[in-house]
């Protein structure tokens, strides 16, 4: 199904019900050596903002993707590493738990929320190569257009979306196979753009954030 025209999409986004995120952790798998040596924040969203992600167009504002479980966080990174040709042994990755309790999001795993946007579950979980190929031809994918339209809603902090793995793994293989997409404040690594809510990185080891 195609997305509605821009003005109708904006209306549909405005009319959609936002869901407050429950107080449950989300996860991010981080290459500790790179983060330490380059001084990048664990919640950095700048680079994905620039290159584009499934729900943000290239050259967009900082966007942060978190995974529903530690397994999913590691799995998604492993796939990205393979297709970037990084097959040599790499430094250990550490998975951080991250809290964004109270954030207001558009839950695209809910069919009632998703239907007005004209995108099916299958279209949300197409292989990454689909949106990447469109981007190489200078075109944003419908899912990216939807993401940017949601960013424009001033009380919306992000999206809950199914992982692309949902399209290749049998149902029930992974618990909570969802990702959280957050619209980040370009001036602050731990703050959300639209509402100014703060994100907490739980670093009980005190390795990075004592």
């Amino acid at each position: 199904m195609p997305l509605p025209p821009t003005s109708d999409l904006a209306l549909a986004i405005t009319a959609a019900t936002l869901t407050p995120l429950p107080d449950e952790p989300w996860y991010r798998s981080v290459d500790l050596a790179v983060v330490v040596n380059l001084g990048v924040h664990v919640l950095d969203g700048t680079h994905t903002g620039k290159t584009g992600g499934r729900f943000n167009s290239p050259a967009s504002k900082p966007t942060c993707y978190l995974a529903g479980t530690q397994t999913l966080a590691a799995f998604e990174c492993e796939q990205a590493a393979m297709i970037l040709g990084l097959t040599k042994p790499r430094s250990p990755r550490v998975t951080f738990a991250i809290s964004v309790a109270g954030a207001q999001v558009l839950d695209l795993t809910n069919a009632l929320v998703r239907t007005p946007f004209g995108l099916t579950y299958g279209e949300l979980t197409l292989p990454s190569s689909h949106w990447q190929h469109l981007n190489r031809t200078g075109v944003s994918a419908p899912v990216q257009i939807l993401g940017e339209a949601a960013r424009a809603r001033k009380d919306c902090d992000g999206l809950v979306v199914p992982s692309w793995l949902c399209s290749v793994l049998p149902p029930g293989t992974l618990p909570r196979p969802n990702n959280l997409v957050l619209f980040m404040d370009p001036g602050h690594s731990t703050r959300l753009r639209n509402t100014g809510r703060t994100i907490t990185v739980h670093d009980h080891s005190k390795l990075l954030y004592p």
Partner: protein
Amino acid sequence: MPTTTLLFASKLATEYFNPTTGYQVKALCAELGVKPAAFARVTHRKTESVAKLFSGKFVNPKEGETLHVLRQMHQILAVFRAMDWSKDDVARWMNTPLPTDEGRTPLDVLAKGKGQGLVDRLVALATGNVGG
């Protein structure tokens, strides 16, 4: 924070760049396994004109494209230094066809002027922000 600032703020690979005198092109290319002919192809320069850049001294090329490529190569090296990859492994990666880029190698991507995207993807992966 812009990538360039981020990498220059780190202590990695600074021996190949000096803000005043420019890049140590020969050594930087050697670290990445980029031969003069390949550098000429990537920067769209004639091989003879590249020889001057490979003099072993720090040089500050005026050509925007060459400067652009050097900046991206320097950042790629900084990321791989951070990951503690060997020189041989980095050199091999520079010539590895990437599924993300329709089989182009990182060198081909640099030649197309898209090297910054590669740097951004490497850093995004390091922070686990792979973008679904």
